[in-house]
């Protein structure tokens, strides 16, 4: 008999934080796009690797290369993503160019025009790459570049080596970005929790104690889940569900002048803990809540079948 209220409370609670997580994710996505966070992190990660104080800042050269320049939305922004094949070609080109820079110089012609002249040309790209490497001072960056060309016998092999490495590195960058997203989700979660006064302790308590509220939210969840269990229809649908949730009078959301007046220090401390918990729950992200919701819904349906 007790199983149903526990399950319903769990379903209501999970669904409530799922909607909030989705809302926070939408805000977060907009915010990260506005701040060009993806592009900046990619630039930072390449700068860490390619800014070689003993030689040059190759990340600047990379971003100034016409291939990468074309990926920028505007001149002062960074591309959020660099395709693997483009990175590979540009890196080889930059290093090969070092050889040309070392041997080339500006000369004035008879008509007064200044031209850049390069006396020694090497045909094969892989040889130009190796010659470019030879012009660099010994550094970690040079050592890193040498690992690509050491066992490469052709240009294709060199490209493959760089490309494989870049793939792995981008996976790592994606991981860093996820951590960044989570951090910002927590901040947005905290903002939402404070603005709407969403205290996780009060919410859980209301779902547990208020039978009518619990039934209404569970019904709303079941209807929504039935419609969306195969695929979540993002933001718009969720936003309308959140509006429905907010209209439930018994749900302890929002601020009231009376409650502020009547609360003491103890209430305030509890509120802070509740907001922090809410922010933490929101930062878990909508996919996780959706997965848990799916599991608990199947437990409920099997429990109903057994009955």
């Amino acid at each position: 008999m007790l199983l149903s209220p526990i399950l319903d409370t769990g379903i209501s609670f999970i669904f409530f934080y799922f909607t909030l997580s989705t809302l926070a994710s939408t805000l977060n996505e907009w915010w990260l796009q506005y701040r060009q966070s993806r592009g900046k992190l990619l630039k930072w990660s390449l700068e860490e690797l390619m800014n070689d104080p003993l030689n040059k800042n190759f990340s600047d050269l990379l971003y100034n290369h016409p291939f990468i320049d074309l990926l920028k939305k505007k001149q002062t922004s960074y591309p959020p993503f660099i395709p693997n094949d483009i990175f590979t070609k540009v890196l080889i080109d930059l290093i090969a160019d070092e050889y040309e820079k070392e041997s080339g110089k500006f000369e004035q012609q008879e008509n007064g025009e200044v031209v850049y002249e390069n006396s020694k040309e090497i045909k094969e790209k892989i040889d130009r790459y190796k010659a470019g490497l030879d012009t660099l001072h010994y550094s970690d960056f040079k050592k890193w570049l040498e690992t690509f060309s050491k066992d490469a016998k052709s240009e294709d092999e060199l490209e493959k080596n760089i490309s494989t490495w870049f793939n792995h590195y981008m996976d790592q960058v994606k991981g860093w970005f996820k951590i960044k997203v989570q951090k910002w989700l927590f901040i947005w979660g905290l903002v939402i929790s404070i603005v709407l006064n969403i205290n996780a302790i009060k919410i859980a308590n209301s779902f547990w104690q208020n039978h009518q509220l619990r039934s209404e939210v569970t019904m709303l969840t079941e209807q929504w889940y039935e419609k969306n269990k195969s695929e979540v229809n993002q933001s718009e649908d969720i936003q309308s569900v959140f509006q429905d949730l907010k209209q439930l009078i018994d749900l302890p959301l929002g601020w009231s002048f009376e409650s502020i007046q009547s609360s003491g220090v103890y209430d305030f401390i509890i509120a802070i803990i509740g907001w922090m918990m809410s922010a933490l729950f929101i930062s878990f992200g909508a996919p996780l809540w959706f997965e848990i919701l799916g599991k608990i819904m199947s437990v409920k349906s099997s429990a109903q079948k057994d009955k």
Partner: protein
Amino acid sequence: MEMINAHIHTFNIKNTPERFLQYGMPSFIPRFLHPTFKKIIQQKSIARVAAKLIKNPFLSKHLAFILIGLLETQDLIFEKVKKAYPEGSKFVVLPLNFKFIGLGKLQNTYTQQLDEMIEVKRKYPNTFLPFVHIDPRADKPSKNKEFVEKYIRKGFNGIKLYPPLGYYPFDPRLEKVYEFAEQNNLPILTHFGQGGIYYAGKNMPPEFQNPPSFIKEYDHKIIPNKKNILFCDNFIHPDHFEAVLKRFPKLKICFAHFGWDFYKGKGKALFKRKELFDKIKIMLMDPAYPNLYTDVSYSLADKGFNKMLLKEIEENTDLADKILFGTGFYMTTQEKQSESEFYLNFRGEMGEAIFQKMAVENPRKFLSTEFFKL
């Protein structure tokens, strides 16, 4: 008219040291808050508003760095200045080695700054005329000369000096550089005005007060001052340069800014406002220094300066043969006028005949070397 702007900068914020903002930071901001403040002010939208509101000369300079210097490459900065001038205009581009300014590590090394300039020159070989800045503290005398020679042979057009960063023109580590410059008719452009950027380290090294010199017969006088900004004017004392010119009389040298005064802080500056201007004027007209020039960079932002200059030229027409047109971009972005307004207003104020000398004939003479003719 294929004009030449003989004084611009394209280095960006990556070429400055990590604590560059600190020397412009208002004293009421506690030191531990500086990194936070720097992070906030380096947001372009905030910097744009701050640039309009803040009148602190050093903070304004930093804001100019932020608004222009945050551009990713020197290429982008150069494209910005190019737009303000007729097609085919040439620009003398002056780098700065901030390594010894006393404000921490550089994000990009000085050689990276120069190598990036080579990249820009490859795109604009006829209009981008880079100079190489030499700070004598970088290396031994022969190495300094080798450093300069390497870049000159690569295609750089001249040498830049910026003594207020903490060195004297008579530094023994510069002697071989002057020799090389004189032999090859290379132009040297030196900062010559009060204010501007200066050595900002916490403690001033003892050799600032007792510097070694390669000109034994010259008795240099150094006026002590506890404030860095005021002490650093000692580095540009005209007597120091006169001593160098006596030793290297054929040296082709340009005193930037015509000695005009940008100092707006508290305390008594080493020179009175017009003192350096008058001294330079006398030196320019002295037949003992046939290769001496000056430029009007940044000073042309001051309408009073332009008026006075025109009056001086009208009184002594030969003076116009010794002046180069330059703006000092992008330091000028802290002023209300745009780069094209600076150029067009100055051209209008001087008149075509004088401007032709300043922006075409004189820079051609100044910039022609054993390596390149203009």
